[in-house]
């Protein structure tokens, strides 16, 4: 057993999840089972291998350029109002669970 209940509590906290006592027990079991299987990655020597974050790194990049210029394929000129106009405030608030018509409303953030 590598992952403990304490680890699960810590990670749940990072992920903004609460998890019931029962869920925590299940999570310890499942994460250990999955990570046990994942261990097999250590059979591979990757000390000289570059990590790959994006597929487009492999076909879009201009290797002759430096820094962010290498990724010119993914950039465009700035447009004043964006490619599509921003949503009207009223539309942007339509799906909000709570709003005052101008802002999203949430419970008190700072406790006094």
């Amino acid at each position: 057993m590598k992952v403990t209940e304490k680890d699960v509590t810590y990670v749940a906290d990072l992920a903004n999840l609460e998890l019931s006592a029962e869920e925590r027990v299940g999570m310890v079991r499942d994460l250990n089972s999955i990570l046990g299987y994942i261990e097999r990655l250590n059979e591979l020597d990757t000390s000289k291998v570059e990590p790959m974050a994006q597929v487009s790194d492999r076909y879009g990049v201009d290797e002759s350029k430096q820094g962010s210029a290498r990724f010119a394929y993914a950039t465009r000129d700035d447009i004043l109002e964006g490619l599509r106009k921003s949503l009207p405030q009223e539309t942007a608030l339509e799906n909000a669970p709570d709003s005052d018509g101008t802002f999203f409303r949430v419970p008190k953030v700072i406790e006094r």
Partner: protein
Amino acid sequence: MELAGLSIDDARSAVQKRKTTALALVEEHYTQIQKEDGQIGAFLTLCKERALEQADRIDRMAVEGKPLPPLGGVPVAIKDVMSTRGVRTTAGSKILNKYIPPFDCTAVERMEAAGAVILGKTNCDEFAMGSSNENSAFHPVRHPRDLGRVPGGSSGGSAAAVAADMAVVALGSDTGGSIRQPASFCGVVGLMPTYGRVSRYGLIAFASSLDHIGPLAKNVKDAAIVLRTIAGRDPMDSTSADIPVPDYLAELEKPVRGLKLGVAKEYFGDGLDDEVRHAVESAIDKLKRVGCEVVPVSLPHTPYAIPAYYLIATAEASSNLARYDGVRYSYRVAGVKSLSEMYRRSRDEGFGAEVKRRIMLGTYALSAGYYDAYYLKAQKVRTLLTRDFEEAFSKVDAIVTPTSPTAAFRLGEKSNDPLAMYLADIYTVTADLAGIPGISVPCGETREKLPIGLQILGKHFDEGTILRIAQAYERSAHSGS
């Protein structure tokens, strides 16, 4: 009209020649949905008003004698992970059960601009996380041929809708096999295009470096027509490639004689069901008979694909799903006193078990002290898996494999064992990691009459070749040669 086997061209030309109307075609599909979907559960939301409006527009074009666009009057279904303006979009999750997007996904917009009539939104595993459709927060989808079995996942609703003639074609999404595996289970064609070929603007993100949109169709030509419609650069998605879109229909007509097909032993090892193996081997023989050459290739890192995938996909998911905070558009729990309590309890109640499991695994893999051992290690293995394909594709034009190690399994069979469920994706995840295109085409049935799928993988941006091989197989299978 007879809906069984109805293709895009059948539907479009019948409307164009006024043998039927787009309106009648839509009504017939809704009748079929009403008749079949109570048992199957492929649809979550129908958008009749939007469909009738579009059908009317197409019918007026037909009456005026104007040529219809490529999908003119064709009834389609859209997986519920793609945003549809004014039509509820849930991603199969309770956390979005009331979400009505104010905009359209680019792929949806392009389908409609090409004349497609959107019938509704199809069921899927929650946030596309699953291989059986049992992770939908609403209800599972059942296999159209055997209601005790799963249709595959996560695009199970889209696959079942097409298989049961409730739509002519459907859009799905594929992050680890979610188009190809359900296509294989349900006996339809499923195409995952190259990463970057189709814009993901408006697709609810699961794992951004792996998510793809593609078609599920009754035949290969229909998949090609849909790909041509949705492919190409979109300024709204910086990962969409600025590479010209070929005429896939012209590609289909090119000969397959002389094409080299790679066969990798790593895809025919332990765990592959005998009936599936036999069907796939016969399919490869058929391709030989139409002039393809079979060449053994090696993809030695294949056994490491599932572990690498489940680290990368969950790490990206844990970040993407942070946006569901109960503030702007997602579910919020009632009666909370603090912001932090609101976040936690809304997410606890809004997300299902598998989604929480993946958020936890991904957060763990990215957390201090584990990043190098897990996430970075997986990214390096991703490089090795991609190199395997590059090496193989220096010798062959395409690689043929089974799509899934088994035919459709039973509901509940794997739902209590996450690892067993993950292994259902064993032959599909590598293509997502490498960003190469793949297609699943039906290649026979088991003794229990369950469909089997042949997977054809291609080079980056070479969808033309895999479509061509898939169609050559489809034709040879139909002619019985």
